[in-house]
């Protein structure tokens, strides 16, 4: 974060933020921190609306908005950032107009794009704190992973029908202790179709208004250091029965991002992770036995993995590290990241499966399937 002590205010700004500045536990220093802060809000929909409005009103100096969609009339049941005249307009642009009209002293940066594994790190790294207001599981995991990899706090909220959840992920407290992140709470996403979406289940319009406002509150606390953010806690709000509950959540040793044995070091294919892609559609890298033999002759560094069963290995093997298909993803830490990894089985089918699973789960890009497997290798080797 930019050094907040150097932040100055115009007379107009001091007058505007007066009610913040005069709160004894808040004061000018907190307002300076808000002005120095850069917050990225992902999604300017149901949650994004109150988030953006209240962060702009609070005087967050730089607000980034990631949003690719266009305003639809059905959004206006809850997305109070927009009006009738915005229908058909790009949400990002409409949001910026509205926010600058509310607070001309702040900077609003637009990222009129879908957040993907290709652009997430580039976008997120420019900001100090991220507020996730997205509407699907793949993006939830993408935002989480990008924040953990970049060391950014991820202020999380999600909603469904009458329920809301809020938490603050990947937060480092005053003692330097790192809190849990989304993967500690939900290590795997629900398979598609099992948990209904808002489009199928609907959402009470005011619910994201309430929950998104709480989210904005958490962002402000994270930036200013005032109060206690929802770090290590999951807050649940049941709007229907007006009940709330706060649960304790912890970091997990088996978190593949930042547990004891991290195996995810880059962004992965989140649609595939959430079961939204047909595994057969995904192309993998393949090499022929001829190429493999050439690599060996040239002294090309590589690691050879054999995904067959132990008894097959005993019968005949070509010196690969045995990691049977059934448990190969659990042993991903044994795969080298610094050289090409050639994966083989008997004929090339199981090894292809292994590669797809490893690529989907860990985002590895250095795996090569040995075409024809050990059968092809032995045939070629005999000809030599």
């Amino acid at each position, binding site marked *: 974060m930019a050094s907040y002590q150097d932040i100055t205010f115009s007379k107009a700004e001091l007058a505007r933020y007066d009610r913040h500045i005069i709160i004894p536990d808040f004061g000018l220093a907190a307002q300076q921190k808000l002005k120095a802060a850069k917050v990225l809000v992902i999604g300017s*929909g149901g949650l994004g609306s109150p988030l953006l409005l209240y962060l702009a009103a609070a005087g967050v100096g730089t607000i980034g908005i990631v949003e690719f969609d266009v305003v639809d009339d059905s959004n206006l049941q809850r997305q109070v950032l927009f009006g009738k005249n915005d229908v058909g307009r790009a949400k990002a642009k409409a949001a910026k107009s509205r926010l600058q009209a509310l607070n001309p002293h702040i900077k609003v940066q637009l990222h009129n794009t879908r957040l993907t594994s290709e652009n997430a790190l580039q976008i997120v790294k420019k900001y100090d704190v991220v507020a996730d207001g997205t509407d699907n599981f793949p993006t939830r995991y993408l935002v989480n992973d990008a924040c953990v990899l970049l060391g950014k706090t991820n202020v999380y909220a999600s909603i469904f029908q009458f329920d809301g959840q809020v938490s603050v992920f990947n937060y480092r407290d005053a003692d330097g202790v790192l809190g849990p992140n989304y993967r500690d709470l939900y290590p795997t996403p629900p398979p598609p179709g099992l*948990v209904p979406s808002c*489009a199928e289940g609907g959402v009470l319009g005011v619910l994201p208004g309430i929950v998104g406002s709480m989210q904005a509150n958490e962002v402000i606390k994270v930036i200013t250091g005032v109060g206690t953010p929802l770090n290590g806690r999951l807050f649940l709000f049941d709007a*229907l029965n007006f009940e709330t509950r706060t649960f304790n959540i912890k970091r997990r040793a088996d978190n593949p991002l930042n547990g004891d044995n991290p195996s995810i070091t880059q962004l992965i294919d989140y649609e595939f992770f959430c079961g939204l892609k047909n595994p057969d559609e995904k192309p993998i890298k393949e090499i022929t036995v001829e190429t493999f033999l050439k690599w060996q002759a040239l002294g090309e560094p590589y690691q050879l993995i054999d995904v067959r069963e132990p008894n097959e290995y005993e019968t005949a093997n070509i010196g690969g590290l045995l990691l049977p298909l059934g448990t190969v993803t659990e042993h991903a830490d044994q795969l080298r990241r610094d050289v090409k990894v050639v994966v083989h089985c008997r004929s090339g089918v199981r090894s292809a499966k292994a590669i797809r699973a490893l690529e989907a789960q860990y985002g590895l890009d250095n795996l090569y399937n040995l075409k024809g497997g050990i059968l092809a290798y032995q045939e070629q080797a005999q000809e030599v």
Partner: protein
Amino acid sequence: MATVIIPTPLRKFTNNTAKLNIEAGNVEEVLLDLSTNFPDLKKHLIDEKGEIRSFLNIFVGDDDIRDLALGKTPLSQETVVSIVPAIAGGLA
């Protein structure tokens, strides 16, 4: 009698009941009871191997059963068991 809170997305399988009082000694027994009384709920709670669905969190009081004794986490009269699925709103 532990009180079990059924999350909104799953209430359609429990005749729209949000809170149930279940006689059970531990979390495993609660899930068994729910699966028996609400067969349509079962597949949303446990997978084919009989294990708790990995995208569901179960809290006994304010703590995650993964920080307690998982399915064997004991329950008493005043215990509140909360089933909390992942939600993401919007799109599927």
